[in-house]
């Protein structure tokens, strides 16, 4: 492991702690793994749950993810933050799980291309809170991943591209269609409620 080449952000205290944990995990230290697991469990559960929208899959994918972390810790090369590396694993494991269960991973963005009416901000904010869960379920797993990584986990565009192993423009595209689709779905939910 090239821990000395870790990024400057990973050099912060939390990042350093995680690097130390990873080093200990490389040596087969189960206590270090336990600490890393507990540190990441809430965020990973949220991310996996947000991406799959299937509570029954969350524990399975979480365990798959952490098992990969345990086995692949020696391959971490410090090019990205530890958290970026772990979420990239979680992203891939979630896609795998969704494929195993025959779920749709992508949506053809063209289907979402219908223009939406000009928003009434105040009204949409209320609708957003009320219907967000169901509206998110209408997005593709990849679109939900971008939403989760941006709004819940607070990742920058380039870091998300690293996690999803795709160009930055692809991240922007997924976010663009995710926003548009959310708007459309929220409009529909509002009409249903009337």
């Amino acid at each position, binding site marked *: 492991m090239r821990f000395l080449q870790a990024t400057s952000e990973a050099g912060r205290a939390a990042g350093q702690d995680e690097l130390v944990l990873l080093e200990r995990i490389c040596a087969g230290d*189960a206590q270090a793994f336990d600490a890393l697991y507990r540190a990441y469990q809430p965020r990973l559960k949220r991310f996996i*749950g947000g991406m799959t929208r299937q509570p029954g899959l969350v524990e399975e994918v979480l365990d798959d993810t952490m098992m990969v972390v345990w086995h692949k810790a020696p391959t971490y090369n410090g090019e990205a933050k530890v958290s970026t590396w772990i979420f990239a694993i979680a992203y891939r494991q979630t896609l795998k799980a969704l494929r195993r269960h025959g779920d749709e991973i992508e949506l053809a963005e063209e289907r979402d291309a219908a223009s939406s009416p000009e928003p009434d901000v105040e009204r949409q904010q209320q609708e957003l809170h009320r219907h967000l869960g169901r509206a998110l379920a209408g997005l593709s797993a990849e679109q939900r991943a971008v939403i989760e990584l941006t*709004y819940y986990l607070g*990742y*920058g565009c380039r870091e998300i591209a690293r996690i999803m192993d795709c160009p930055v423009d692809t991240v922007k595209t997924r*976010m663009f269609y995710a926003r548009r689709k959310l708007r459309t779905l929220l409009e529909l939910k509002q009409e249903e409620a009337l």
Partner: protein
Amino acid sequence: MSGRVLRFGGSAHADVDRLLPWLVNGTLQGEELERVRAHLAGCAACQREEAWLRSLQEACRTEDAATAPSRRAVHRRGRPAIHHALRRRAWQHWVIAVQAVLVLVLGVALLRPERAPPAAYHTLSAPDASRARLVVVFAPSLSEARMRQLLRACDARVVDGPTAAGAWVLSVPAARATPIREALRAAQGVTLVASLDAGR
């Protein structure tokens, strides 16, 4: 991804619009941040979009508070399944280690120069506590097939014979020597049955 990847080389408005989510989450930096701020100051549509995206971010975080397990809940639920898997693996490593030691010991034992255990020689006449000896005289008319049938029924083995007098020495299970002797005496074609062992 099956869909089109949009190229963001178009209008300044479209370009800024695509970056708004990361302005909202505070990760936009440098030239991009300056450009977005400059555009936002004079664009009502982008301002509305920014407000909506902030609502979306807040809603996402609020949704988390309702669905994510609390730290206490995590601890209450005990060790997650993966820890059991890892502990199982640790246990498996011990099993593998023990197996390896056993294989090694077995291998050493097999590779050592073979030393045969002291041979135990027994003569036919040597006493065997588990067997009793009977002397039996069969009638001359008894067929060989009938003789074999009687011997099998008594679990008897021929130890000696026939002697000059036509007698056979049989070895039978000592535990059943008496009933076997009686059965042979009662059997048709057997003229004499006697025990060769003292006291039996």
